[in-house]
């Protein structure tokens, strides 16, 4: 299958390893990955911070960039959530019904990584090998906006060598929330502290999730406290193989 990668601005700039892993994984599974270079950012930060008007050109660009592809994948529940639940609304609010319709079209063909693997490609065992004790944080937008359910966990369970430990209070927000983490830094930190407490209680070496943004936040806290626990994107775990070690 020919799959267009929507890399997301955060993975592109700060966490290319997660995006590279997405490419390696899909190619290993026998698919062709293309990267439309005209893409930049879905506009979620603008939309969620109250700058919906500024986001209109970004929505237009995103829709134009991905209109020609049958399947689009992003290694981010949050950005797919924005594409699926906000783009058409932003376009309609700006009075551009044509764009809203096209945005709805693109949204219907855009998948978060675990959705693509399980629902579209029909795989749960991706042939990965990752010999670590891992806990999975579901991330709010994957959980409650996309409703990916246990798809990521089903994928992780099939990874050889991986010891999956359940995260207590997993469905609680980690406190990232985009600009919330800066505008309400104290409350965000209080939420992060509880999330880290739960991660540490599992005894895992690695905390994984399907969103680089939440991982940047959780990982930033774990690093600041020198906990020795790392954050690794789900795509990197699924892309890891014994041969690659």
């Amino acid at each position, binding site marked *: 299958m020919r799959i267009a990668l929507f890399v997301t601005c955060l993975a592109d700039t700060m966490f*290319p390893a997660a995006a590279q892993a997405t490419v390696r994984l899909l190619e290993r599974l026998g698919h062709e990955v293309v990267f439309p270079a005209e893409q930049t950012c879905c506009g979620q930060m*603008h939309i969620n911070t109250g*700058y919906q008007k500024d986001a209109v050109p970004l929505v237009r660009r995103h829709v134009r960039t991905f209109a020609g592809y049958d399947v689009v994948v992003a290694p981010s529940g949050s950005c797919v959530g924005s594409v699926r639940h906000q783009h058409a609304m932003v376009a309609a609010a700006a009075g551009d019904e044509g764009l809203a319709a096209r945005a709805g079209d693109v949204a219907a063909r855009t998948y978060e990584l675990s959705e693509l693997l399980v629902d579209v490609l029909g795989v749960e065992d991706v042939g990965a090998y990752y010999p670590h004790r891992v806990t999975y944080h579901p991330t709010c*937008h994957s959980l409650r906006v996309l409703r990916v359910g246990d798809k990521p966990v089903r994928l992780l369970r099939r990874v050889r060598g991986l010891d999956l430990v359940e995260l207590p209070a997993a469905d609680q*927000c980690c406190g990232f929330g985009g600009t919330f983490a800066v505008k309400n830094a104290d*409350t965000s930190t209080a*939420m992060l502290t509880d999330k880290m407490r739960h991660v540490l209680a599992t005894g895992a070496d690695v905390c994984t999730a399907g969103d680089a943004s939440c991982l940047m*936040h959780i990982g930033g806290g774990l690093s600041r406290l020198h906990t020795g626990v790392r954050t690794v994107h789900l795509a990197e775990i699924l892309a890891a193989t014994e041969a690659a070690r």
Partner: protein
Amino acid sequence: MTRRTFLGMPGPRDGGPGEHPVTAPRGVGHLRGDESFPAAARKALADPQLRRNLAHATTTIRGKSARVIAELPDWQQLRDAGSALKADTMARLPELLEELEAAVTAAGGVVHWATDANQANRIVADLVRATGADRVIKVKSMATQEIGLNEALQEAGVTPVETDLAELIVQLGDDRPSHILVPAIHRNRAEIREIFLRAMPGVDPGLTDEPAVLAAAARRYLRETFLRTPVAVSGANFAIAETGTLAVVESEGNGRMCLTLPDTLITVMGIEKVVPTWQDLEVFLQLLPRSSTGERMNPYTSMWTGVTPGDGPQNVHLVLLDNGRSAVLADPAGRQALHCIRCSACLNVCPVYERTGGHAYGSVYPGPIGAVLSPQLTGVPDNASLPYASSLCGACYDACPVRIDIPSMLVHLRNQAPHPRTESAAMAAAAYTMDRPRLYAAAQRAARLTRLAGRRGRGLPPPLTGWTASRDLPDPPPETFRDWWARR
């Protein structure tokens, strides 16, 4: 009765006729805080007692509620029904309110229309004064707190006595409520004992902090007050347009005392509380207790229809309160906030509320629903930090028994908030750059070099200081994804 500015119609406003519907006036009531949410939250986060009480109470009630909700196979359909009933009600609020007025009047009640908090307070104070009473007993009510009725009554020489136990604790402690349903959630029993000893008339000086002893002391004080007070003030959970029936649901029975013993009963109710028919309660009375207290049915449901000669209050008044609700109704993207049945489920599941408590929101309506309702009632600039008091995690939307899409409303209201100038400039610059891929790629590389030149992940300049105060930034990667892709 006069009716002026309801339902999105242009009406009088300070400084002449306004083009916008009237928002709740300043200087009266409790819809605005003294400081921004982040500043108030910072103080609350440092209070260990508050943190412990909140975590315990919200976790307990979440568990209870989840258990009784799981018993109902048709819970999701009930939510759909509740949502549809509210949408229908808002779509024809004017006619339903007139129907309600006619039905209440026909049953011997008197209906008053209050454009705002000042007018409502005046109406109630005049009604109480006309009875000659210098004291009223109160049923727990959000609407009367919203308008600051207790303060207004005191100014008029009338002493209001709260009869809900938690509300009484708040009142005697000269405090503010911090939860819709559990107003004294921020207090422990040692503090409650001290408050009673200090402020409860006729209290036993040997009072201990045993919950049963504290409850008995409150009961003694309240019973005596019930029997000697001829006027009660209440809110209403529902008002049935078809029959003119008002309904109050509660747990303690103190509300029932107030609603039945006095001679005069004055009910202050937001105009959005009307429901079309008696049968609609079938839906709401299943949704409300399960979402709020985690009970299958609330212990006391009191309903009254005007005056029943020789039984219960013989003078029954209903004050219909707008106080900004027409302004909320006028915004199609915001009016869902009026669907709220005040169950407080969204507070109990909110990770922000669980850590900051209610006071940080500055309004009588805290938590997720407060973050969308208060700014709309007052106009967003008067509560500009509230739409941002959420990580948009979506837990409130999942919990709401009438499916109010609070996250989308928060995002909508953020567009109406005044933005800091530097932030606006940065956002505009980011949008400009992100619409130009080559410029964007150059900016990515420049940012990487700046980061490499600086220290690792600590002490970023404002506004990013908030990030690096508690979190490291990852090391800049060797190259961006698009550079990697290009050389592949």
